[in-house]
């Protein structure tokens, strides 16, 4: 095989490698985007059922958002679920079960130890109702984060939570 042929084959292989990498990255991006869109759609579809008001379309009120994790202020605590408002002013329902690990500092907490107004970071998995089944919840005391990031009042006008 002469030098020119070897160069040609090497060029073709490099080109194929680059094309494959680009396609792989693109496919991964599509996968992540799909997860976001699917969760946002289910969240919008179920919103009126949990919070009242008119049904919301997908991607409202502000684009698609994450379903595998969130951070926010606890606005309401119920028996086995929490309602968190994230910095992008989206209300999310976090489901608690026996596998949920709640921690503050170095100590493990129970659901009763969490209060409304606490800052939470949640990792979990979305279900088909636009809710997040929490696996890990880390609780922060008020004042540890920059307060301007966590607006006390929501920006957009959505129906208030039912009593």
């Amino acid at each position, binding site marked *: 095989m002469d030098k020119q042929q070897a160069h040609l084959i090497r060029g073709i292989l490099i080109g194929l490698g680059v094309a494959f990498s680009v396609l792989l990255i693109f496919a991964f991006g599509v996968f*992540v985007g799909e*997860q*976001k869109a699917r969760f946002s759609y289910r969240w919008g579809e179920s919103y009126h059922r949990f919070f009242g008001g008119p049904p919301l379309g997908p991607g409202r009120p502000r684009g698609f*958002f*994450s*379903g*595998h*994790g*969130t*951070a*926010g202020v606890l606005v309401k605590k119920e028996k086995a679920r929490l309602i968190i408002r*994230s*910095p*992008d002013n989206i209300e999310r329902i976090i489901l608690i079960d026996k596998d949920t*690990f709640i*921690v503050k500092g170095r100590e493990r907490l129970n659901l009763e130890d969490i209060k409304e107004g606490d800052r939470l*970071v949640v*990792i*979990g*998995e979305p279900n088909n109702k636009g809710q997040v089944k929490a*696996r*890990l919840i*880390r609780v922060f005391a008020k004042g540890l*984060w*920059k307060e301007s*990031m966590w607006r006390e009042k929501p920006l957009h006008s959505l129906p208030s939570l039912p009593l």
Partner: protein
Amino acid sequence: MKIDKLLCELQNVPVPPQLETKLLTAFKRQQRWLKFKQTTVALATLITFYLTVFSFTLFTADWQQTASSQILKLAFTDPVQVKNSLSNWLLAVLESVPLTSLTFFMGTVFFFLMLLSNLLKKFTLKKVNLYG
């Protein structure tokens, strides 16, 4: 024109003054063009540097406003729990990263480094090939 001058020199014929003038004008034009190119590259490098700094502040401000920064910190505060739910944690980080400002920042860094390397090439000493 350079070939014409070479031919004159090879034939021991004096180079006509018009040819000399044309060659000088072409040389000066080339020098002006090179200087213009260098100035443009230097200016573009400076502009992309400021754009890089601006996009970095924009990205960090955007990033602080998302849950991504908080979720990333969990890898340091709760490594065991994050390892148990690694796929969820990874997806949570990727889903909440502010893509627009990150892309803009990476783009400006790329162009800045490209222009900087172009600029620095002109200032590096050329290696002398002693063996021809």
